[in-house]
């Protein structure tokens, strides 16, 4: 009799637990927010967002240039790039104050375009190989800008440097 009572009690006690699990599923309407259909639609959305669809990827691949394309907007930002390649194309655009750019390049063909707009910005540019095809342009607009460029004789063949503003300084060293 005691055993019978114990079994009955156990059965009664377990039932709410099972119902509790079921209730969570039954009442869990908020999980509808994560339905499979939504998941699938988000997958589509993400393929657009993250440029993963084939056409976009193909378009992107056709435009890919070896090198870097960097833009920074704001103050006290830094870019450091150490580039070693047969061919590299560098495009850096910094807008703001007290920004820094450090470039260290080793490549047979270099195409470089750097623009800094603001005040107290700085470019340190190293190209330490000789007789390579180098084409570069650096533009600084603002006050107290600074450029240090260290490279080879070939470096200066197609170099354009434009500084507009007050207190600008430039150091060019060709070895």
């Amino acid at each position, binding site marked *: 009799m005691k055993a019978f009572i*114990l079994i009955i009690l156990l059965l009664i006690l377990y039932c709410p637990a099972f119902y*509790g699990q079921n209730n969570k*599923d039954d009442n869990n309407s908020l999980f509808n927010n*994560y339905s*499979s259909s939504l998941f699938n639609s988000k997958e589509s959305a993400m393929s657009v967002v993250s440029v993963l669809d084939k056409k976009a990827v193909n378009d992107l691949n056709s435009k890919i240039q*070896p090198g870097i394309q*960097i833009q920074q907007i704001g*103050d006290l930002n830094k*870019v450091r790039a150490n580039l070693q390649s047969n061919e590299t194309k560098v495009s850096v655009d910094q807008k703001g104050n007290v920004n820094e750019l450090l470039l260290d390049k080793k490549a047979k063909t270099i195409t470089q375009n750097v623009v800094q707009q603001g005040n107290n910005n700085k470019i340190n540019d190293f190209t330490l190989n000789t007789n390579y095809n180098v084409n570069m342009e650096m533009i600084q607009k603002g006050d107290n800008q600074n450029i240090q460029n260290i490279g080879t004789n070939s470096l200066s063949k197609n170099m354009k440097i434009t500084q507009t503003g007050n207190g600008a300084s430039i150091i060019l060293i060709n070895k």
Partner: protein
Amino acid sequence: MKKVILSISAMLFVGVAAFAQGNTSSVNQVGNSDTGIVNQNGLTNDSKIDQLGNDNKSEVYQGIQPGLYAAKNNKADVKQDGNNNGAFISQSNEKNEAYQTQKGDLNKATIWQDQIAGPASALGGNDKAWQTQTGKSNTATVDQGTTGNEKPTGLPFNATQLGHVAAVNVPFAPHNNNKAWQTQTGDNNTAYASQGGVKNESTQTQTSPGGTSAADGNKSNHYQYGDENKATSVQNGTKLTENTLQIGNKNTATVTQTGAGHNSIAFSKGNLNTITVTQSN
């Protein structure tokens, strides 16, 4: 005697209640075109799904709005071996862990770890996500605090970097200290990480498969909104692409590309941001 029976009954009831807070689930499926879906609420839940075959699909949902369920410390682990499989894990609240491991080609792995409620009841973050894919043409996606990666919308940015990504305001709530690791071995793989909040970290590693000289055509994407976030990309191979977008202050992006034909596109908006790129043959 009745007291003894009541005492025993009370102890059993507590035990059942504890199980309700720590649900465990293990799903094993062998075959093709299988689907495994797991929903869990509460604390310290654990879900494991193993699928062997092709065209399989798994979905794990742990926790919903923080104000309704204090779901945290959940763990989901999905392993898929085969081709054209899909794995999706959604975890809300905080201190959750998600693991996805896929072997094969044309697989997709997606992890969402978001705060679904606003700052008043959202609990923070501290979520961690791991994705490992071996094979080719795979896609790994992590969203932490950006509610399904709804930004940005366009090719590697511009149109003045997509209107500074439409002035942000991604509902990342107080999301913070999330970490994501995505590791891909093979060719033509894509990794995508989107994080919103503070002090989040994302690391993407794409390397050559064993026995070949280089991984070809891998793509790494980092989109981060907020402050003091870190994005790290390490790529090894040919025709590599890396895209980083950071909006906020004190963010850091570090890119290392080894091989031929590597390209890095980076944009940061804010102050005290640092971008470091190293490219070598």
